[in-house]
């Protein structure tokens, strides 16, 4: 490794590498360009696609239930179309015919599940008609277009007497009708659905007296795609402003061009890789590429600044300046890139396919900056004409330099140091107070993806106002055997479930098989209200079901109950999907299911010293022994049952039981599909094993529908959020530990970063931005931003102390050199990232603002708290460098 000039021993390899890169510039350039060309080709094939299934945590039990039953009982991808009249009611031939045609039009939209359309004009929405001779038939409410007002009045009469229609598909004031259509998840094409709904459903039927509002997840994503081209406006503006700022900062077009080359090459590699491995871009993740490109540009600005500095220092020798800049910044740049890339990789922990894909692609993309920034950098500089010395000298005399110098003087003065420490202490206290309001899930009832006054949110709000709740939570009642849904006790339990949950303020209304059976029973008994109940025996229930469902094909009845009457559902229509409301509703469901099972088992339990004790045994449940098992008996038998007061539950099935929570989950898991349940009970010091025949015919299982899948996503995010943060910071700790070979160095860098993290989380809480599947990765990526700033400053301080031998002087010089570039990078990047606030997609706008804030706070932490801590604490990893010899030319 012979070199014409002397360098410190530990940097010799890097200087050698820089020299060799220039020597072998042609093959390296050709290799990188060929690869970049290939990735660029792939990048241009990339399409914006959202795969709904990839947004869900597929391993979560709710999602498994959702996936099993979405095809029959309804999924999370519903579109609601509300037809509302301004004057009069919907019961006129003109409006009813519109509803008829809109229902037909919906049926032709791509991906719709033809058996899961609900509308008074659809064949699946029926009412009971008593025909001559006492026979009854379930007939569709509308059999065709309405010709006369008398026919319209007849439909009004039918609607008003049908419990499953009035208030659910027709508003109570008769001014609006709702058409609900479910879409097949595998055939969701949001753009196409959006366009077809606009062309076929909205445009032809909207007039002076008729308003049409459309809401639902496919519609929401349709709007997101519609607005996605905004990203190009933001991109163009950001590019132009950044170019101008860099040109003003460097006083040279090369300073503007060089970071662009880095950003573009990294972007081609990143986007090409996404396409190459079969992934796609989600329109809600477009901030992410922007953010990674901003990182690439940031590193490049540092390098370019250093190149100018070294150009002057090395007597205007371009080659030596290039190699010195490369070698001196290699460690902080590579360390920064590695922390960012590995930090993003922790997102892999969240079992959501989209996030896992994002973790892999973002990580690769960030690592690609190594190629464009480090490998190619010396070569690009070599080919670019060196700047005129006048430019280099003049730019160091500008206003920006003067402002930075004054700010550094102020921060490092004794008073400044105290003020910095006091500021961060107060800021941490205030942030600590506000951060408690941070929510997992959506914090508002409107969609946080779009602005409150967007057409989507206006429609959603109008539908909610008119119909109470429209966002479904589907709880499946799965029978242990055929005909389980004809069991009166099961139907009564479903009815009780509905009445219990309807007390929740966020549940608008509910629907289950119990509603049908009560309505049919009432009609069967000449609409006498006292007969609007669930019959007491299987035969009557079966008879009523026969009356209602006979004549309907299984594809139509399947949305209520499967053909073998084994499985049905209770659907709760919720008023919103706020994170806290979802959590509460799901908890109430769990409480109801658990207490119902205990009631059927005839026991009450309580927690005692970390265990679960049977506190009372009910006499209402009588047991008898049948062979080795216990089963509930209807006989007048009063012998002792399987459970005794004071028994400690040790195990249910194979699941060990500790506290009450573990008993709950054990009971849920072990009774999911079993008709025999094994209990291990500790009784009088010894363990008794008993087997009982499940005293119920069906088990309630959570959860499908939009609320069910959101509950699953929120639970996964809650479970992984803390772990991800801990692992993210731990990854950064390890990398900084190896970079500076010091246990303390990472603490100095991560401390300000953690405070910045706290402040940003507090801001999110204050601005009602929840942690959800879209915000989580951005928040994780944001954490890494601050570490880059700190790495450049600390690395430079180490370099400076080797020549000055004084901590204060070293830190001061680091702030005046690397700190200046950090300041420019942070300020310009904050400005252009804030341009996202122009986006019509509220989510992108808020994420842009959030990330801009993140950059600003991280920057302030890196240039105030970090240097003050270094000066006041004189860390050993810095002081020990004072003894080393400075490199000499």
């Amino acid at each position, binding site marked *: 490794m012979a070199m014409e000039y002397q360098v410190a021993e530990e940097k010799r390899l890097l200087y050698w590498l820089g020299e060799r890169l220039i020597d072998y510039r042609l093959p390296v350039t050709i290799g990188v360009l060929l690869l970049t060309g290939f990735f660029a080709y792939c990048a241009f094939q990339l399409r914006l696609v959202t795969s709904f299934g990839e947004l869900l945590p597929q391993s979560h039990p709710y999602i498994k239930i959702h996936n099993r039953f979405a095809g029959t009982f309804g999924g999370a991808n519903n579109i609601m179309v509300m037809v509302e009249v301004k004057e009069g009611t919907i019961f006129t031939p003109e409006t009813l015919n519109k509803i008829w045609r809109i229902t037909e039009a919906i049926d032709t939209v791509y991906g719709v599940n033809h058996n899961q359309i609900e509308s008074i004009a659809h064949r699946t929405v029926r009412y009971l008609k008593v025909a001559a001779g006492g026979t009854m038939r379930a007939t569709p409410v509308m059999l065709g277009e309405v010709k006369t007002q008398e026919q319209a009045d007849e439909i009004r009469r039918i609607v008003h007497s049908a419990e499953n229609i009035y208030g659910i598909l027709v508003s109570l004031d008769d001014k609006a009708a709702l058409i609900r259509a479910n879409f097949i998840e595998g055939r969701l094409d949001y753009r196409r659905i959006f366009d077809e709904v606009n062309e076929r459903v909205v445009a032809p039927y909207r007039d002076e007296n008729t308003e049409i509002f459309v809401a639902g997840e496919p519609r929401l994503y349709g709007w997101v795609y519609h607005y996605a*081209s*905004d990203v*190009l*406006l933001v*991109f*163009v503006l950001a*590019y*132009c402003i950044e*170019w*101008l700022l860099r*040109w003003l900062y460097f*006083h*040279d*077009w090369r300073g*503007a*061009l060089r970071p*662009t080359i880095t950003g573009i090459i990294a972007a081609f590699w990143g986007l090409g890789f996404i396409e190459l491995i079969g992934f796609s871009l989600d329109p809600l993740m477009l901030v992410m590429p922007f953010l990674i490109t901003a990182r690439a540009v940031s590193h490049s600005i540092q390098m370019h600044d250093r190149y100018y500095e070294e150009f*002057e220092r090395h*007597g*205007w*020798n*371009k080659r030596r300046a290039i190699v010195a800049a490369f070698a001196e910044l290699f460690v902080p740049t590579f360390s920064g890139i590695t922390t960012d890339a590995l930090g993003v990789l922790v997102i892999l922990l969240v079992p959501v396919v989209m996030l896992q894909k994002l973790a892999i692609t973002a990580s690769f993309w960030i690592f690609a900056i190594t190629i464009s920034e480090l490998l190619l950098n010396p070569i690009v500089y070599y080919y670019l004409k*060196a700047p*005129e*010395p*006048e*430019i*280099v*000298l*003049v730019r160091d*005399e500008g206003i920006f330099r003067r402002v930075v110098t004054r700010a550094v003087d102020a921060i490092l003065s004794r008073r400044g140091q105290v003020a910095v420490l006091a500021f961060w202490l107060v800021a941490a206290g205030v942030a600590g107070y506000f951060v408690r309001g941070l929510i997992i899930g959506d914090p508002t009832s409107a969609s946080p993806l779009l602005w409150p006054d967007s057409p989507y949110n206006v429609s959603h709000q109008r539908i909610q106002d008119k119909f109470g709740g429209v966002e479904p939570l589907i709880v499946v009642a799965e029978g242990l055997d055929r005909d389980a849904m004809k069991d009166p006790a099961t139907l009564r339990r479903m009815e009780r479930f509905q009445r219990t949950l309807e007390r929740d303020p966020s549940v608008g209304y509910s629907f289950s098989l119990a509603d049908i059976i009560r309505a049919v029973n009432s009609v069967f008994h000449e609409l006498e209200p006292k007969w609007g109940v669930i019959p007491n025996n299987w035969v009557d229930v079966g008879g009523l079901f026969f009356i209602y469902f006979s004549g309907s094909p299984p594809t139509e009845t399947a949305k209520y109950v499967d053909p073998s009457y084994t499985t049905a559902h209770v659907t709760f229509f919720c008023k919103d999907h706020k994170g806290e409301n979802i959590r509460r509703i799901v908890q109430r469901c769990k409480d109801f299911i658990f207490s119902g099972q205990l009631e059927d088992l005839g026991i009450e339990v309580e927690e005692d010293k970390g265990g679960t004790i049977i506190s009372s045994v009910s006499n209402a449940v009588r047991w008898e022994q049948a062979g080795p098992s216990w089963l509930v008996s209807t006989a007048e038998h009063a012998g002792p049952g399987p459970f005794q007061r004071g028994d400690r539950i040790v195990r249910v099935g194979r699941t060990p039981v500790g506290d009450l929570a573990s008993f709950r989950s054990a009971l849920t898991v072990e009774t999911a599909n079993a008709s025999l349940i094994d209990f291990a009970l500790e009784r009088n010091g010894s363990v008794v094993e008993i087997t009982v025949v499940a005293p119920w015919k069906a088990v309630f299982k959570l959860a499908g529908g939009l609320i069910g899948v959101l509950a699953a996503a929120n639970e996964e995010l809650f479970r992984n959020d803390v772990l991800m943060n801990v692992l993210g910071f731990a990854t950064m700790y390890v990398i900084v530990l190896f970079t500076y070979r010091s246990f303390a160095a990472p603490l100095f860098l991560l401390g300000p970063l953690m405070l910045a993290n706290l402040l940003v989380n507090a801001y999110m809480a204050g601005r009602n931005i929840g942690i959800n599947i879209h915000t989580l990765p951005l928040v994780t990526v944001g954490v890494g931003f601050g570490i880059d700033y700190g790495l450049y400053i600390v690395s430079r301080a180490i370099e400076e102390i080797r020549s000055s031998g004084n901590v204060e002087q070293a830190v001061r010089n680091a702030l005046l050199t690397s700190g200046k570039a950090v300041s420019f990078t942070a300020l310009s990047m904050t400005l252009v990232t804030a341009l996202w606030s122009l986006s019509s997609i509220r989510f992108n706008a808020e994420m842009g603002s959030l990330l801009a804030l993140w950059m600003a706070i991280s920057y302030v932490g890196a240039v105030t708290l970090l240097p003050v801590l270094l000066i006041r604490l004189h860390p050993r990893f810095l002081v020990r460098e004072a003894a080393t010899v400075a490199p000499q030319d």
Partner: protein
Amino acid sequence: MRWSLGLAITIVIGYSLILVLLDEFVAKPWRHRRLLQRARAGDRTAQELLSRAGAAAGESREARGQ
């Protein structure tokens, strides 16, 4: 206006080219003239910068010749 990728790329390339040309043929000569004017008007900083830049330009040519 509906944005397309082609339009965005055209705008940024055009903008970059304009900025490069402006820098080379307008801004740099203007900056140099302004520095000369300041130096002629007796501005010490400008005079020092010009002399350093002149020396540096010589060094730079020398370094390139090596």
